[in-house]
């Protein structure tokens, strides 16, 4: 199925028109052939029914009087009718009175059984014609007519129709090839324009509008779309620029902050070292040191000398006033 996606719209359109034409012509071809065969068969059967009736009319008196020679003379004349393969005349008892077979006929004459119908076989038309004398059936004439000429005519007709349809299909192809441009050219124009826009990202361009059909609406919509895209692009560019400026600003601030941070870290390091030095100094001081904070003057730190000198642990002293009292 994927190959369908790779076929161009032009070829798809030609293919669809060609396919529909092929189906239509095919249906027309089949129905015309069937109709022609039926009509021709009917006409053929009618023609030979008349011929059979005529021959039968000539056979009435000879059959009635039992003159075989007369029947043979009549059958001799059948040689001038190339389509008549064989003929048989039955008497009123259904027995064969006389028979004829075309000399060139390769088939051996099979004496047909008496039948009442006229019908077609694969290669011949069979006709049974009753012979009446004074409203009394005195016999029946059997005729076997070759369908070779009929089939040749039908074959010729089939070939003619097939040739006509082939020529029509060629014409359809060329017409489809040229006329598809009416539909595909605006679409291809839009396609190429879209490709160009996609390639160059130049949203300032507009496709020239065409009369207000569906494609025209598509063009207008496409123009509106790329106009919107252009506006958004411009906005994005503006925002990008502003963002860039902000970013640069933030980068500068960041740099400054990093510098400050470095300074603070350095200061912190110094302070930590000082704190360590101070703690070491008061921990090792021979003086008792009590450090408190806030209005309540709660003890925050008491150096070892203080504990050693006064015998109080820090948790035993709630504040400096209590300790003094």
């Amino acid at each position, binding site marked *: 199925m994927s190959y369908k996606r790779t076929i161009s719209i032009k070829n798809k359109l030609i293919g669809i028109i060609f396919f529909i034409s092929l189906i239509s012509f095919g249906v027309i071809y089949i129905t015309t052939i069937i109709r022609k065969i039926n009509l021709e068969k009917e006409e053929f059967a009618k023609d030979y029914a008349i011929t059979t009736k005529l021959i039968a009319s*000539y056979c009435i008196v000879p059959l009635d009087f039992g*003159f075989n020679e*007369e029947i043979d003379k009549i059958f001799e004349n059948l040689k001038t009718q190339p389509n008549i393969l064989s003929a048989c005349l039955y008497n009123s008892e259904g027995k064969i009175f006389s028979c004829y077979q075309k000399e060139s006929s390769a088939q051996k004459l099979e004496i047909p059984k008496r039948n009442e119908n006229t019908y077609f076989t694969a290669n011949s038309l069979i006709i049974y014609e009753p012979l009446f004398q004074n409203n009394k059936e005195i016999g029946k004439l059997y005729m076997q007519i070759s369908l070779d000429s009929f089939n040749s005519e039908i074959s010729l007709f089939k070939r003619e129709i097939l040739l006509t349809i082939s020529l029509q299909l060629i014409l359809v192809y060329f017409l489809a090839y040229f006329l598809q441009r009416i539909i595909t050219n605006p679409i291809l124009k839009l396609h190429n324009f879209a490709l160009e826009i996609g390639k160059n990202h130049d949203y300032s361009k507009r496709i020239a509008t065409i009369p207000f059909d569906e494609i025209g609406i598509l063009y207008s919509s496409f123009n509106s779309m790329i106009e919107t895209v252009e506006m958004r692009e411009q906005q994005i560019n503006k925002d990008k620029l502003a963002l860039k400026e902000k970013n640069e600003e933030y980068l500068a601030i960041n740099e400054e902050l990093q510098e400050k941070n470095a300074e603070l870290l350095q200061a912190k390091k110094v302070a930590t070292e000082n704190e360590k030095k101070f703690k070491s100094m008061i921990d090792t001081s021979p003086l008792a040191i009590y450090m408190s904070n806030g209005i309540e003057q709660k003890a925050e730190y008491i150096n070892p000398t203080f504990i050693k000198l006064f015998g109080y642990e820090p948790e035993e002293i709630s504040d400096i006033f209590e300790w003094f009292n």
Partner: protein
Amino acid sequence: MMAIFIHKFTDYVDWSINSDFYNSKQFTITFFGKTSLENKLKIYLKSEKIQNKTIKINQVFEIDNIQNPEILFISNIPQEQLIKVLEYTKNKPILTISESEGFGKKGVLINFFTFQNTLRFEINKNGVEKANIKTNSYLYRVAKIIE
């Protein structure tokens, strides 16, 4: 065979243009002169009808006794007598039949003859046209025509 043919001729000949034919309930076949065919025909047409009429078969030897049959079979009679018989049947709706050579040319409407051991018949076309009867043209197709 001749009896069969005579019977068959009745299918191809129309006497109805003569008004007397309608009124008559009998279909008369008369044999003029001596012939054995009369008995054969009687046997063959026993209990048969021709054109819905009962069949009357008789034999006469005098011209005055012929009356007006539908078919008159003329046996092998002398020529002088034949001429008189034909003079009698002239313009009458009588189908004359014979089995003697040359009678057809003399004016008998249908004359039997043998050809290659087969019984055939000849028709005197002028005579049929002048007679007050109609003959089916199909009959000419199998007959020898005498103009």
